């Protein structure tokens, strides 16, 4: 049996084990005078039996599947002639690949020499053997698990507690995986970035004013010096994010206040879903809205005022990103504003405050931590936004503070650096990781600042 069939069989066995365990416990219950005399409900005995059946077998299956290729390779290499064994690492790898191809297709086998055919036959034999042992071991373990689990069912056995302990361990492992993934991502970005900093000094990267990542692939190429100053990129990112926040924070906050405090229920029921649709539009669609509608509009308006406007501008991208994140801010703020207790509102009204005064002096301060949280989430969306910027703000890494100019952002550069055929060890591609690291550090700092702000200014109710 292959691993998938085995897995399905195992699940089937576990279901049977559940039914069996439940039935056994019911029999015990009848013998001892009813279900209420059992320590746990019958289904817990079922779960326990199923866990005994499935869990150890599953672990063995997983380990076997992980270790099998390595062990088989080792066995295979040991069986090969000495001169093949002594081949350098990369050629040995090719040789082994060959063998696997031959094992896979008859056509390949006709062209192969005798040594290879022998080795292939040996490989196939080993694979069969391994599969057979695996199947036998897993099934035996599963059946033994059922028997062992069922044998433990008795009136006073604490099945519920042991099932819950297993559940707790599974929960713990799950959260562990999330944490490990975070650490893993950070480390992988960090190590690649370190490799980049071997080629380009950190100082030049952080404070360099020119970004031109084209490096020469051959020594006779000209005009591809490679300059990796990240300042223009961060400037562009900050500018676009700032424009977006300038649009989104006031609009989003005012929307939330209006919807939660002033709007009639009818209008609220209409406006909220519409706003949520705004959040569901793919960013590509926003992108061409920005490039085809907003950017030309800004250009014509700018020209009528006598300003030089690039056809792709930071302003266009910023405005559209701002519109995109309005629903984030408005719906998160709406939630936290509604979470302010009614008693606060009534207390304020009873002192002769108007609705507007109540919102400004009581509700907003009380909801502030949540609002800051929403704004922060929106900032990281704005910083991370790529598609709209590619389409509306261009790719030119310019040192400029003029929002009417074309600019580029960190995320856009990461995309351009890594798309297409690339060498994976040139400074050009590695620069993407350094940029990613910088972006990560930036958002981390933003989060820390926000946490500090929230703690300092929070007005806690209850």
């Amino acid at each position, binding site marked *: 049996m292959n691993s998938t069939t085995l897995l399905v069989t195992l699940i089937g066995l576990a279901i049977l084990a559940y039914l069996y365990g439940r039935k056994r416990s019911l029999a015990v219950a009848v013998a001892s005078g009813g279900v209420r005399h059992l320590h746990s409900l019958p289904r817990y005995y079922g779960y326990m039996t199923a866990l005994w059946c499935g869990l150890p077998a599953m672990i063995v299956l997983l380990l076997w599947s992980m270790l099998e290729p390595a062990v088989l390779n080792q066995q295979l290499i040991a069986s090969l002639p000495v001169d093949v064994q002594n081949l350098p690492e990369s050629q040995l790898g090719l040789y082994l690949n060959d063998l696997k191809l031959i094992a896979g297709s008859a056509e390949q086998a006709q062209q192969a020499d005798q040594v290879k055919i022998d080795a292939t036959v040996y490989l196939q034999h080993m694979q069969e053997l391994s599969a057979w042992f695996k199947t036998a071991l897993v099934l035996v373990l599963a059946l033994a698990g059922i028997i062992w689990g069922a044998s433990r069912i008795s009136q006073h056995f604490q099945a519920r507690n042991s099932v819950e302990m297993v559940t707790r361990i599974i929960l713990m492992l799950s959260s562990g995986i999330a944490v490990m993934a975070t650490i893993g991502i950070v480390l992988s970005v960090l190590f690649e970035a370190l490799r980049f900093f071997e080629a380009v000094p950190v100082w030049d990267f952080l404070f360099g004013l020119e970004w031109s990542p084209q490096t020469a692939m051959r020594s006779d190429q000209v005009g591809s010096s490679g300059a990796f100053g990240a300042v223009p990129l961060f400037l562009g990112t900050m500018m676009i994010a700032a424009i977006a926040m300038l649009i989104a924070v006031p609009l989003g906050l005012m929307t939330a206040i209006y919807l939660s405090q002033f709007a009639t229920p009818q209008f609220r029921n209409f406006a909220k879903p519409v706003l949520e649709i705004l959040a569901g539009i793919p960013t590509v669609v926003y992108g061409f809205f920005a490039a085809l509608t907003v950017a030309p509009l800004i250009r014509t308006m700018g020209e009528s005022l006598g300003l030089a406007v690039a056809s792709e501008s930071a302003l266009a991208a910023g405005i559209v990103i701002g519109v995109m994140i309005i629903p984030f801010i408005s719906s998160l703020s709406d939630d936290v504003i509604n979470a302010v207790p009614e*008693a606060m509102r009534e207390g*304020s*009204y*009873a*002192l*002769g*405050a108007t609705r507007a005064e109540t919102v400004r002096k009581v509700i907003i*301060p009380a909801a502030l931590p949540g609002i800051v949280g929403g704004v922060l989430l929106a900032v990281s969306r704005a910083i991370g936004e790529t598609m709209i910027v590619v389409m509306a703000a261009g790719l030119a890494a310019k040192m400029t503070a003029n929002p009417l100019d074309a600019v580029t952002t960190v995320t856009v550069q990461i995309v351009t650096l890594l798309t297409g055929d690339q060498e994976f060890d040139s400074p050009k591609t590695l620069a993407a990781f350094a940029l990613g690291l910088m972006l990560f550090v930036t958002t981390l700092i933003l989060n820390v600042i926000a946490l500090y702000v929230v703690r300092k200014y929070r*007005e*806690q109710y209850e």
Partner: protein
Amino acid sequence: MTQVIEAPDIHQAIKQTVGSPFTHKPKISTRNVDVFYDDKQAIFDVSLDIGSHEVIALIGPSGCGKSTYLRCFNRMNDTIQSCRVTGEFRLEEEDIYARGMDPVLLRARIGMVFQKPNPFPKSIYDNVAYGPKLHGLASNRAELDEIVVSSLQKAGLYEEVKDRLNASGTGLSGGQQQRLCIARTIAVSPEVILMDEPASALDPIATATIEELIDELRQNYTIVIVTHSMQQAARVSQRTAYFHLGKLVEVGDTNQIFTNPQHQLTENYITGRFG
């Protein structure tokens, strides 16, 4: 005389308010008040005067409409969309529900203290200064300081918090929070203070402090208090009004209500037959 009356008979039994609902020169007078939530009527034809500088207790079993009635005085029911009030409410001579009456200004004249202490999540000082700031009662910081201190003193809280006026109001104990809410209400110098079960969330010692405070406040304010505790009504009020199923059954001097009730329902309630 003391047999329990079945529910369908009760509306029959309360044909007219017994006792003395009207006073000479009332602070607030209400006539023929009906209150509806959508189609459901919560208050039936209540007429009652609140005398100047008296504490009047509204008592009655849960759901009898006494809180609803109380919230009509400062138009807090305006915030509930389905709520409709008819009848006449007058604060001295002014019609509370007149078109020209701004509920915001009305609430500065008729303050309210709620069942559960609800200090704002601000400092003790800012809690008390909130109302005066809204209504421009102080022209400078020194005046504001004075209002805050004197309000806290009148609420009997100043000695306990004078060293930490900048600490959060929500950090106080329940009883202190309620006195802070009273101080906050006093700070806008209202004429009338409405209290909706002000001590029901407090322990007996804090309750006793609040009751003493209510007695002192009577010198300067007219107080309408809703309470579930008959002992409390007996201790703090001069007049008592008994509500039942949205109707005003009996009004009279507190002593008379508790010693010699005229209406059978009142007697049943105060002797603990239901409630």
